[in-house]
């Protein structure tokens, strides 16, 4: 498995991307706990595999018929042996007992973990085909309300082993079933409408972790990508502050025109930009669009070119996407993109 491991050197240094989401390279506590039980069962299975393959190979090599003359003599007709059959019933049961203990313990340890006071609370709402992310704050009555909203890219703080600070996710869906999966941080948990699920991360390495929606959710299931940015505590706090602030006002003329186009078309009925009349909830929140690294839930890196492509016709980058082609003129596209580029 070592061949598959990514470069381990960059860990905990400068923020970096982990492009290979290898589940045997866990960088977060629940993923490590899963990893350890996986190793037990994998090793047991490997040993059984080698033993039984050896037995198959042995009988195949040792007992072939030696041709027509040999066939004149039938081998001894043995009906069975209760002794050996009992043995190969009991030994698997013993192995199963061990596996049951490991499994039930690990299930409980991960699933029933109590979240500490300092945990970051995030609610993730799955949509066809993007993620709506709510950062929560206490409502003062023991519950939680939305602090601010972003989309697709989840930022969470580093959780040093001596001072753990987990991130607690609540998972909901707005339409069909999705599944949130970042292999190096934790296993997957389904995102189900009319049903709340929970999971948690406790990463000890900074960087960008990749994942996918893991439950088939329609046409663009493949492009419902997940990016989780694990940041050092101070960077994370700065990011939180930036997100809470309102976006800057557009500066130049062309961006102002773009703003006109944006608010003059039906963009506002689906998208939200904090502090403006755009309060749509159907599409991703665009308040701090340019603080993200990709558009279309990871279908392309963010930038003028990809934004142009997207605004001109979203289905070109992401066939089947629910955002319609707004039929804008080339000039209007330029203007809207210029406006969007100011949303930092």
């Amino acid at each position, binding site marked *: 498995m070592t061949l*598959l491991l990514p470069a381990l050197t960059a860990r905990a240094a400068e923020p970096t991307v982990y*492009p290979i989401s*290898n*589940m045997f390279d866990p960088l977060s506590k629940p993923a490590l706990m*899963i990893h350890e*039980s*996986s190793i037990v*069962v*994998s090793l047991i*299975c490997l040993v059984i*595999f080698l033993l*039984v*393959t050896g037995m*198959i190979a042995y009988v195949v090599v040792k*007992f*072939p*018929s030696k041709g*027509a003359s040999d066939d004149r003599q*039938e*081998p*001894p007709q*043995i*009906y*069975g*042996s209760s002794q050996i*059959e009992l043995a*190969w*019933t009991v030994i*698997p049961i013993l192995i*199963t007992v061990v596996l*049951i203990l*490991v*499994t039930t313990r*690990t*299930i*409980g340890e991960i*699933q*029933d973990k109590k979240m500490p006071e300092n945990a970051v609370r995030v609610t993730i709402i799955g949509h*066809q085909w993007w993620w709506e992310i709510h950062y929560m704050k206490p409502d003062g009555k023991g519950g939680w309300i939305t602090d601010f909203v972003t989309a697709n890219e989840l930022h969470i703080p580093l959780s040093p082993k001596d001072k753990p600070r987990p991130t607690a996710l609540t998972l909901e869906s707005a339409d*069909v*079933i999705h*599944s949130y*999966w970042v*292999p190096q941080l934790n*296993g*997957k948990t389904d995102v*189900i409408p*009319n049903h709340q*699920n929970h999971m948690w991360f406790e990463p000890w390495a900074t960087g960008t972790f990749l*994942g*996918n929606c*893991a*439950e*088939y959710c*329609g*046409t*663009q*299931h*493949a492009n419902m990508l997940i990016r989780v940015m694990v940041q050092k505590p101070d960077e994370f706090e700065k990011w939180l502050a930036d997100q809470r602030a309102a976006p800057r006002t557009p500066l130049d003329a062309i961006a102002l025109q773009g703003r006109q186009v944006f608010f003059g078309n039906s963009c506002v009925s689906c998208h939200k930009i904090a502090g403006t009349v755009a309060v749509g909830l159907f599409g991703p929140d665009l308040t701090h669009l340019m603080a993200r690294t990709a558009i279309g839930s990871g279908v392309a890196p963010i930038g003028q070119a990809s934004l142009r492509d997207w605004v001109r016709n979203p289905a070109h980058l992401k066939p*089947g996407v629910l955002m319609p082609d707004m039929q804008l003129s080339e000039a209007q596209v330029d203007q809207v993109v210029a406006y969007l580029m100011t949303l930092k």
Partner: protein
Amino acid sequence: MANGTTTTATDDDDFVITPTRPGEEKGAWSAWIQDLLFTVDHKKLGLMYIGSGLLFFVVAGLMATLIRAQLAFPNSHLIAPDVYNRFFTMHGTAMVFMVGMPIIFGMANYLVPIMIGARDMAFPRLNAFGFWMFFFSGWFLYFSYFAGPGLYNAGSAPDIGWFAYSPLTAKAFSRGHSSDYWTLSLLSSGIGSMATALNIIVTTISLRCKGMTLGRMPLFVWTFLVVAFLVILALPPLSACQIMLILDRYLGAKFFDTQSGGSAVLWQHFFWIFGHPEVYILILPGFAAMNEIVPVFSRKPIFGYPIMVGANVMIAFISLGVWAHHMFTVGMTSLGNSFFAISTMLVAIPTGIKIFNWIGTMYGGKIRFEMPMIFCIAFLFQFLIAGLTGVMLSVAPFDWQLSDSYFVVAHFHYVLIGGLLYTIFASIYYWYPKAFGRMMSHKIGLWHFWLFTIGFHLTFGPQHIAGFLGMPRRIYTYEAGRGWEIWNLMSSIGVIFQLAGVLLFVWNLIYSYRKGKIAGDDPWDAWTLEWATTSPPPDYNFEKIPEVRSRRPLWDLKHPDDPDWKYE
């Protein structure tokens, strides 16, 4: 074993050309077709089941080829996403319901009555009805490609995955009739399946020939009895949830409407109450074939007959209580997850017993490496892998990583191809001489075996690793640089070998029908009743209903000095 000689069937390359067999030239095409349409004979229906199953196998297999072509390279634009989604839905649905089930029922139809010394199934007309229900619903499913907007953009073919999780199937997310095609065709093929399973149960219980006690029934028949019971218990939940979905889609019922308090998880429970036993419905017939073929080619009786029967029953019983292991990620309580993890692990025990007992059967025998036996040995190895990856998946925490990844794809293809399909190949090589009176070519068979085996492992082996690296199922494309490229490329190359193997197999079927060596009544020197009649058997199977005194009636006749019945 005509005339008491000890010829073996290996030297098949000197073909004997004989005039057409009696009955072959009796009528023109129209009479032949009329015969097929109106027949109630279990052997003809059995062959029709297998033939149409193989036809759908080729179609669904070509879809898989296109899927692999799309995934061979990252960021591929060969197939549009909606077309791709229709492909994998139709591939999965067809392979399970239009390929696996009918071939299994075909085997049961052809062999169960002969093996228990009966002349037909208990309800021959119901048998014909069951076949036609399956046949029409198969075409009904594929008709969806031509319906609605027509072939362009793949018509109204369903695009909801073979387990069709709600609410993706709700009217709001699946407009038009594509989901209705899926639901209705499975509902109607389910009616046929239940009719056939009922028929198998009644036949096995009531039509056994004299002396064929339950303890002497061939293990093949035993296993199919268990399979039929599973169908009887597992198909109704599927039909029930199809009815619910139809009510939802046509009458606005709220079973799976999450906006009105309906539950999306309920569908998963109902579907997998069917879906998991279905896996055993598909793999137990593989065991059935192993139970007949391995002893004959090892020249020994099956090792531990009673415990093999017990293991079958145990597997079937446990499989009814493990369904939610497909749902470890839906957020059940830790108690629920633990329960289903434990019950799933328990299945490994009887399954392990069976593998060991087959090895025990081969141990000390004189193994003849004929084509059926070669496929069976490959089955042992591949099913071992499938079983062990299954144990890995049963560990719920590990499953939180592996579920819905390519590891799962690899796992169940090892079960269904490495397990079921290999035994189907073995069975066809083994019983083809009985059904058509000619041996299949050993030489072409070897080419078929090696090409297919190499292709199979090349395709599905690397998918385990792609799964470890976080590649989810059912994505029509993936970005470069995530470490998946090489595994997907290997996977796609493997398909070419598999295709070649299947082509050779089809060629072998046709070629041997015309030019294969004449088989005789009992080419493999076997022990069960089907080899006591001619190849192919007459319409009435036996001139005189046989009587048996042991599990191996033909052994008793061949070894009167040392018969089984003295010792069983």
